[in-house]
């Protein structure tokens, strides 16, 4: 397939179709609405299910129902809508059914605004709803990576029967870039043995995030934790760039990771040995590579489009080996390479 000029939201929708999504349920919210609109046209064309829900609460519960039948179901939204979905995500997480959620993050808290942001980091990576669970969280830095990670989100959700979230920001959703879509995948539609399809010739299946007895609910929790541990061990993804000889480590994800790369390149031109780690999986978080890189540097700089959320994970990874500094732009502002470069240069002089 050749490269074409694609808007992030459309590219994600089209990648989901090609990965094999069976059902899409969604609700309009800027800056992800093009995704919903694209699905409203393409899903019926392909004979698949599209439904515009009355709320994000309904949308995630429709995803839950569809997923219970063994279907690959997804929804997409932005911060305020993702907040409404947390109850449903908590249920899905303990129910062991796969689901894919796209969050094209905007400025918060509250109504905030519709500009790009990374302010959903905490609610996405900590579980977000009640109880002990995590969702797999993938953060693309380009439209091409958004496509690739959308396909990966379905594969990981299916493999682990877990929630996989594509965490884009308004830049990723709205930006147009040349990118290549994967071919349409032909996927087996045979329902898995645990699916609710009607108990024909077998005992009934039940799917619940519930057990009245403490000992069985505890066992279900430990089973979920064991699965999350397998994901932690196998699915960490990140990009390390110029970290081998770095004396100053920049950590940034998504669009900001890409902007920070420019700043790191410029710092090198000024003779400052800067390096970059860009977490691609926000959960599971790349603690080990950051810890290893931090052992060799004088300082760490975390840059985010929020008031400081991932920086807590970086501090845990660095664990006192080097000072961790933060540069943030909350509320829908996008940092430019120059301001990151300025922080890098200042920190290198302090060192």
């Amino acid at each position, binding site marked *: 397939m050749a490269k074409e000029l694609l808007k992030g939201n459309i590219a994600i929708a089209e990648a989901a179709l090609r990965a094999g999504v*069976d*059902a899409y*349920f969604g609700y309009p919210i800027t800056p992800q609405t093009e995704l919903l609109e694209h699905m409203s046209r393409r899903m019926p064309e392909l004979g698949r*299910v599209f*439904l515009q*829900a*009355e*709320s994000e*609460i*309904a*949308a995630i*519960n*429709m*995803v*839950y*129902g*569809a*997923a*219970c*039948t063994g*279907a690959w*179901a997804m929804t997409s939204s932005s911060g305020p809508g993702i907040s409404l979905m947390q*109850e*449903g995500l908590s*249920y899905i997480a303990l*129910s062991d059914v796969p689901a894919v959620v796209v969050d094209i993050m905007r400025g918060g808290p509250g109504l905030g605004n519709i500009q790009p942001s990374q302010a959903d980091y905490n609610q996405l990576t900590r579980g977000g709803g009640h109880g002990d669970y995590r969702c797999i969280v993938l953060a693309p830095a380009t439209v091409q990576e958004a496509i690739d990670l959308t396909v990966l989100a379905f594969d990981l959700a299916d493999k682990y029967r877990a929630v996989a979230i594509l965490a884009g920001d308004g830049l990723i959703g709205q930006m147009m870039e040349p990118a290549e879509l994967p071919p349409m995948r032909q996927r087996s539609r045979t329902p898995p043995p645990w699916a*609710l*399809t*009607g*108990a*024909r*010739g077998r005992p*009934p*299946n*039940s*799917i*619940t*995030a*519930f057990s009245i007895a403490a000992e069985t609910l505890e066992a279900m929790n430990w089973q979920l934790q064991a699965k999350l541990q397998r994901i932690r061990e196998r699915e960490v993804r990140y990009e390390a760039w110029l970290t081998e000889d770095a004396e100053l480590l920049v950590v940034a994800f998504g669009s900001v990771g890409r902007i920070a790369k420019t700043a790191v390149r410029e710092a090198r031109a000024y003779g400052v040995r800067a390096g970059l780690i860009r977490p691609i999986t926000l959960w599971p978080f790349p603690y080990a590579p950051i810890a290893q890189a931090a052992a060799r540097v004088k300082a760490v700089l975390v840059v985010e489009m929020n008031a400081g959320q991932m920086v807590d994970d970086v501090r845990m990874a660095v664990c006192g080996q080097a000072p961790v500094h933060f540069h943030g732009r909350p509320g829908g502002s996008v940092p430019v390479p120059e301001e990151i470069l300025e922080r890098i240069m200042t920190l290198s002089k302090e060192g």
Partner: protein
Amino acid sequence: MDEQVVVVALQEQKVYSRPRALTAETTNYCPGCTHGLINKLIAEVIDELGIQENTISVSPVGCAVFFYRYLVLDGVVAPHGRAPAVATGIKRMLPDRVVITYQGDGDMAAIGMSEIVWTAMRGENITAFFVNNANYGMTGGQMAPTTLAGQVTTTSPQGRDVETMGMPTRMAEMLAGLPGSAYVARCATYDARTIRDARNAIRLALRAQMAGAGFSMVEFLSSCPTNWGLSPQEALQWIKQTMVAYYPLGEFKVSEAVQRLKAKR
């Protein structure tokens, strides 16, 4: 020889068994609560229509959370009030299966009002069973949307004040007014006649779904002796004398398609 003949005759006269679609396990329902009876009626009709292997249940949060176990069906427990949305997701994927929700009055009429109204608005081809016992049973008898005017509950200790809390919610009448509804009825289970009518309503609602007629809903006035502070007998009398006066029994919506179904049998 005569004795042997008598034994055979007795065996042939067996007239009732537990429905296949109903569990043999003991339920968690309180003594005198009619949830168990309503579960059994639904199971009987599922047997009669031969749809046990083709039906998927969606359970609520509340006293009936174990509906997924009491009915021998594939099933899921939805978040509080969200059963109609979960059922929508199932039905859209498997339109040839029978999908049912079973919800209490807090679940459907309070926290889940948006989901049930929009499911009915879309004419979603599912059946919702709605158990109205005029209070939140599971949490110990708080005021529900369906609590009657003046009714004392743990959160309306002076009785429901309609000046501040409004009048009780009539779900059947409300949902019947929506164009997507095909069949809506309100029943009770306090005597043989009302039980028979309830079974007929369940049957017609499920047949409506099987015929693709659209959204169907059956409301049951149900007893809650524990939280009402009444004996099981008194609780049934309270339904008959007090609840029915505000919540009249009968059919509130029978679409043309369902009328044709009704005429067939």
